């Protein structure tokens, strides 16, 4: 095996940023100011920052529960409380952990619990589960809950869709003003939208570097380094972080450092990560010299539409243009473009048992893409968080056989 690449130095900075993020939220929750808003991953974070909230993302906490493999331990507690094992395992892990009084934030940062929400703000562009998830906490804390009920399955994003979402954003403002104690200020919103745009531009550039051969980063690196784009967008720290990361990647490219030494195969990952098995999957594919160079998941934090000149409309458009909100025809075109641009020869579809909206294999898309693009596809059955639904041995055999097949076809 060729030597593994040196660790990415920017990771240290990212860890500091994440620590600052969680410690800041913990302090805010304890002191009661600034007020804490819970926000879904692609909820209106810009609006919440503009209103002066400390913004907390439970989906990120869900991913932490998965990555630390606490999820599988706590999910049964939520199941026993009536949350089905078939629904979102971010939800069941998060609620289960809360009911058990545990969080990975304790081990990582010495924080006793997730920050208590003063308001919960959802956007169902991901799924309906986020609303049910937030409703659990809204009932528990008797906290106000507001949100956007998004259109889904869109072909083209049209003006009337945008207008509807904008109206829903504006409907939230009185509640947000009341909870935060701050008046809405359009200029502050413009500034957070501008910062989100700066962040997203850089994040897109990071992802696009993987189009190079060999790729300097893989999907597995992206799942780690996306954290600032997820939880700090709208803030200057995220922009600074990606400048740092991009500079380091430029250096690595100049030095010819490959994320997968001896890279022979280039893959696309469609669907959620298997958070508790990132290392195993990454090592396994690296052994087969296969680099996952692009993914739908990490691309989900690219928001091209943000424009501070038109903050509401552009936010609405950005949140509606996302892959997950679109119809299959759009999704296939999208994957097609990334596959061609990144020189991808194989697509892994992760069928996450508890996440239908991110499991795009279920309506024969792998078969259609294999036919139209002439590439190999694999469906990996598993889950984002619930490792009871993931078989290590089957996954290993599937991935190894997939790489063998690509090797045979390349020969």
């Amino acid at each position, binding site marked *: 095996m060729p030597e593994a690449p040196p660790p990415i130095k920017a990771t240290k900075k990212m860890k500091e940023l994440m620590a600052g993020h969680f410690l800041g939220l913990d302090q805010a929750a304890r002191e009661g100011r600034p007020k804490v808003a819970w926000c879904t991953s692609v909820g209106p974070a810009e609006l919440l920052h503009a209103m002066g909230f400390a913004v907390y993302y439970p989906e990120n906490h869900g991913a932490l529960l998965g990555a630390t493999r606490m999820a599988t331990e706590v999910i049964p507690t939520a199941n026993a409380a009536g949350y089905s094992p078939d629904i979102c395992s971010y939800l069941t892990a998060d609620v289960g952990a809360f009911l058990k009084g545990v969080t990975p934030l304790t081990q990582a940062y010495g924080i006793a619990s997730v920050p208590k929400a003063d308001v919960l703000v959802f956007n169902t562009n991901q799924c309906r589960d986020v609303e049910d998830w937030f409703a659990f906490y809204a009932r528990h804390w008797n906290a106000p809950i507001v949100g956007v009920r998004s259109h889904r399955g869109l072909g083209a994003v049209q003006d009337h869709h945008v207008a509807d979402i904008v109206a829903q954003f504006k409907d939230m403002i009185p509640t947000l003003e009341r909870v935060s104690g701050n008046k809405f200020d359009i200029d502050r919103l413009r500034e957070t939208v501008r910062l989100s745009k700066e962040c997203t531009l850089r994040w897109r550039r990071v992802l696009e570097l993987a189009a190079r051969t060999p790729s300097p980063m893989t999907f597995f690196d992206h799942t780690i380094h996306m954290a600032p784009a997820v939880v700090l967008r709208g803030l200057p720290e995220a922009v600074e972080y990606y400048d740092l990361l991009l500079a380091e990647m430029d250096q690595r490219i100049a030095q010819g450092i490959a994320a997968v030494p001896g890279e022979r195969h280039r893959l696309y990952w469609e669907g959620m990560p298997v958070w508790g098995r990132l290392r195993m999957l990454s090592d396994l594919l690296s052994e087969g010299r296969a680099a996952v160079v692009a993914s739908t998941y990490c691309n989900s934090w690219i928001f091209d539409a943000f424009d501070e000149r038109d903050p509401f409309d552009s936010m609405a458009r950005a949140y509606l243009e996302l892959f997950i909100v679109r119809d299959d025809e759009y999704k296939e075109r999208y994957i097609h473009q990334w596959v061609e641009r990144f020189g991808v020869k194989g697509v892994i579809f992760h069928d996450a048992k508890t996440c239908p909206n991110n499991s795009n294999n279920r309506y024969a898309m792998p078969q259609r893409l*294999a036919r139209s693009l002439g590439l*190999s*596809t694999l*469906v990996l*059955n598993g889950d984002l968080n619930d490792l009871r*639904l993931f*078989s290590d*041995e*089957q996954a290993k*055999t*599937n991935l*190894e*056989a997939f790489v*063998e*097949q690509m090797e*045979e*076809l390349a*020969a």
Partner: protein
Amino acid sequence: MKLAAGIDIGAAATKAAVLDPLGRLLGGAVLRTGVDFGLAGARALDEALAQAEARSEDLAAVFACGYGRKNVSLATETRTEIAAHAAAAYHFFPRALTVIDIGGQDNKIIKVNDQGQRTDFKMNRKCAAGTGAFLEEMALRLDLPLERLNSLAREAEDEARLGAFCTVFTATEVLGKIREGAPLSALVKGLFRSVIKRVLEMDSIAGAVVMTGGVVAHNPYLVEMMAQELEREVLTPPQPQLAGAIGAALLALRSREQAR
């Protein structure tokens, strides 16, 4: 003369095959895997070597496949059982194929093009319904020795319809049929049909069909039922349970040739 060997360590059985440089089978063995994969592999190889009247020094390469493939210290390299079954099937039937392997805990459908390259494959999902383990469980519930399943299914005049997906629920369904007075042979035929259904819902079928694996080796009537279901001929290689081991040995031979 340098030989090649393949060891297939499956969830239920471990198989070994020794081939001559032309890919002809000189010796083969099938043992229960047990809990020590390395030991099972070594024993199976010893037995296959003895049958081939060869010694381990005669082996130029040993490839291992199957769940325990990484536990075989004797193996010079490993391949997945998917690669191995495809190689064996194409060796015996060199044309575009769909290979159906029914193993102890895994089913696989593997597509091979007319050049012998794999183009696609599917494994059963986490559930073991429709695998050898399913039939073993049912035989236990019906208090039947496994060896009797094939003859019972063949002599059945009727077939019990079983709808459940899950092995445990199928057992419940079978008990219900027994209460209704269904003959044992009809139940076993229904179980065979259930295996076929589970397999065919995994993927589409294209080209010639080859079935491999232990379940097929012990239950040739299942192959006949599959042929009826598909309305086409279904091929089986000689000693279908050895297909994985033979395929691994063939891949070892191929690798030696490429290295030259």
